[in-house]
């Protein structure tokens, strides 16, 4: 069953110097219980897209298209309904949100508060539920008594995940949930997130710049560039055999420890990330693309089919499909 459907979603920020088209026509869908990974360049619009899903964008952002959550359009929903959806159906772990914790209140209180406000736990059960949630994210129950400054960055991030779980949502949107964590806790948290998706039928949208992490947790992967999805498909296939040259560069950027080729030789993509206010013509990736053709600077690219359940926005892909 489809839980979430995005149809031609666009987001434009208005700032003093003009308009910033941060998301430009994204269509995606997510089944209940499924996990979708969103990867992409810094500034490609991942967080903007995530926040648009629950209408959490600032007022100067204009959103277009349709966002259907359980069949209801989030963009036209009444305020009261939207509030209910935000608490009971979907929750976000924001990028860098561990800084939003209130410094003068114990973390146990902060986890319990929304549950009490929304009547999801009685005051006498709250402590037990908090202990349970802390346990789920690998922290001992006595940590409920700690203040945020007594926790390390990684411990705070785990508190944020516990808060997102508090209201037993159907959908969790996790924006870079493991980037602040060390490898060992990342391995634990990823296992935890995988179990949540599998056992509790929670759907997941996970944003990360690390394709190997997304491939580990999510069934499907969407790679964004300059506000558009440039590749979409089953995550392992996208990770191991990317069709779009940008996805290929992303996949190659994380070195294998022990590989002499990458020793003292970090690999990045040359060129500058695109400025959304002055996007390159044609395929927005063309100024940095190692296999660009002459037509790429004028061609209108779109997501073309690229094999079974796969698509990619590259002229080379279209050529192959047409030939076959």
């Amino acid at each position, binding site marked *: 069953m489809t839980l979430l459907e995005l149809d031609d979603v666009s987001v434009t920020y208005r700032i003093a110097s003009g308009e910033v088209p941060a998301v430009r026509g994204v269509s995606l869908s997510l089944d209940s219980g499924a996990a979708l990974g969103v990867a992409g360049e810094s*500034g490609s619009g991942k967080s903007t897209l995530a926040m648009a899903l629950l209408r959490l964008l600032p007022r100067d952002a204009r959103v277009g298209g349709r966002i259907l959550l359980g069949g209801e359009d989030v963009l036209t929903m009444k305020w009261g309904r939207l509030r209910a959806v935000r608490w009971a159906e979907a929750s976000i772990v924001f990028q860098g949100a561990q800084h939003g914790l209130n410094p003068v209140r114990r973390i146990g209180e902060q986890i319990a508060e929304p549950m009490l406000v929304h009547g999801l736990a009685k005051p006498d059960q709250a402590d037990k539920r908090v202990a349970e949630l802390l346990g789920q994210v690998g922290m001992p129950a006595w940590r409920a008594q700690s203040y945020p400054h*007594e926790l390390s960055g990684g411990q705070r991030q785990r508190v944020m995940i516990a808060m997102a779980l508090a209201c037993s949502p159907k959908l969790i949107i996790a924006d870079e949930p493991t980037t*602040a*964590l060390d490898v060992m*806790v990342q391995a634990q948290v990823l296992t935890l997130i995988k179990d949540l998706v599998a056992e509790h039928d929670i759907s997941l949208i996970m944003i990360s710049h690390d394709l190997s992490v997304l491939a580990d947790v999510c069934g499907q992967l969407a790679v964004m560039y300059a506000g558009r999805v440039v590749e979409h498909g089953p995550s392992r296939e996208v990770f191991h055999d990317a069709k779009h040259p940008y996805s290929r560069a992303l996949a190659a950027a994380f070195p294998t*420890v022990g590989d002499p080729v*990458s020793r003292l030789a*970090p690999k990045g993509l040359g060129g500058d990330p695109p400025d959304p206010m002055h996007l390159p013509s044609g395929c927005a990736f063309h100024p940095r693309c190692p296999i660009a053709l002459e037509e790429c600077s004028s061609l209108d690219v779109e997501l073309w089919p690229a094999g079974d359940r796969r698509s990619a926005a590259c002229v080379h892909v279209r050529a192959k499909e047409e030939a076959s």
Partner: protein
Amino acid sequence: MTETEAPAETVSTARRTLLEARDLRVEFASRGRRARAVDGVNLAVGEGEIVALVGESGCGKTTLARTLLGLEKPTAGTVHFDGRPLKYGSKALKEYRRQVQLVLQDPTGSLNPRHTVYEAVAEGPRIHGLPDEADIVNSALSRAGLRPPERFLLRYPHELSGGQRQRVVIAGALALNPKVLIADEPVASLDASVRGEILALMLKLRDELGLSALVVTHDLGLAWNIADRVAVMYLGRIVESGPVEQVLTAPRHPYTQALLSVLPESPERVVLTGEPPDPTRIPGGCRFHARCQVLASGKAAEAGVDARCRGELLDILPASATAQAACYYADATG
């Protein structure tokens, strides 16, 4: 003492030590208990050397980094810069900050939301009264990969992506032309392509300007990409250190072995469970013993070191450049 008795490591490191922690301890009061966040650390960063500090969340990396910067006062031990102990007077610290700059884990927390990019990067040069402020800002932004700089000068942090914000923070650190950069997870919030560019930038700054760096990270791939040496920290102590090639391809401490085993490509995963380490309750014996897979599997007993694992405190590792591990089993099995 005769000259021939000089320890091998001083011969093998031609590098002059620039920044050094000597038997450093930092404690916090935490709910009536003592949290020994940094519990006896010796660590040296040489001129033009990049050292990676890796370890589990909460093991004390940030506390160690903040103490090296003079932002936290050690409970015991000393920080040395350029051979002299760090002074904590406000004037001495101000001068010190020009030499040793910090790049923080989370850019959102380290930028003032009401300051433009220009103001954020100009702050350091202004405090230190440097001339040609605008030139410094432009060149720092370009060096940090925000090109062309004019595009970003008048923006506010909320008008930038997370990655762009981190590059502003790095530009702010570069603006003072420091000798040492202490970077706490500098690329954790950046996407892959920018990550490569910023790591390449740190290597370039090292090669061209002789910049030294201590890079705090949980990303072993990053250490492999740019560091000369790596130090692995567990519960307030360095448990293994040495040249990157040696430590990351032939780790000797069971904790380092576990860290490497959870990387995506590795065949046999050792996901450590048990309580996350708590600096208010540091176990006796080897501090890793409650979670140690080598002890649990009986291999330590076979080597006859299990009693020491559980009951005997290990010596603190010296600030040596050669490979070393604080482990009875590693010592016994060579």
